[in-house]
């Protein structure tokens, strides 16, 4: 069964550095999402992406964050200048339709030092 893959599985970065989290969605999916889960807390929606543009973003997704689909297969989340509070598990998801289930990757654990 096709799956969403995320790399790296764990990223350790110094505060203030830029980080790029990578995702390869399921190949025929058109809707792409990023979520984060701070340790012990709920899963929080960050952003959804459709037709090469952001369709929805949360209050968390401020100017430090950006997403890109640089080619036909990758979907990336960039954090420009990381803060300690960005430490979390980041999940990528993709879906075949707007009301269809989202398929999640195993996540990237981001640790900011």
């Amino acid at each position: 069964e096709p799956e969403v893959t995320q790399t790296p599985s764990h990223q350790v970065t110094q505060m203030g550095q830029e980080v790029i989290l990578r995702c390869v969605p399921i190949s025929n999916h058109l809707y792409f999402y990023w979520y984060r889960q701070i340790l012990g807390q709920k899963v929080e929606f960050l952003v959804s992406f459709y037709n090469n543009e952001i369709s929805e973003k949360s209050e968390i997704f401020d100017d430090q964050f950006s997403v890109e689909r640089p080619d036909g297969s990758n979907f990336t989340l960039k954090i420009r200048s990381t803060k300690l509070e960005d430490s979390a598990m980041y999940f990528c998801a993709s879906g075949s339709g707007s009301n269809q289930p989202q398929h999640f990757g195993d996540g990237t654990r981001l640790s900011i030092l």
Partner: protein
Amino acid sequence: AQSVTQLDSHVSVSEGTPVLLRCNYSSSYSPSLFWYVQHPNKGLQLLLKYTSAATLVKGINGFEAEFKKSETSFHLTKPSAHMSDAAEYFCVVSGGWGGYQKVTFGTGTKLQVIP
């Protein structure tokens, strides 16, 4: 506006007994509803979905959920708990139109299964 409330943060059952994880929602749209499971240090796996077809939805691993519009509920059940069911469960509501979708996660319910 859209919200999801998982009424129990922790549920503990004995192996072989029924499981009930409760979820209530509100949405301005005709929402789709999902249950996901997360095992420790793993991603989120879809258990089942409701997308305006049959109100009783069967999922994987013997789980099912019933969409009750009058009660705005989507509770997850399983007749007989297995040790491997111990995990965190998230109720999710998705509503909107076209490419615009608002997705809201519940706060999660940790299921403990006692041998």
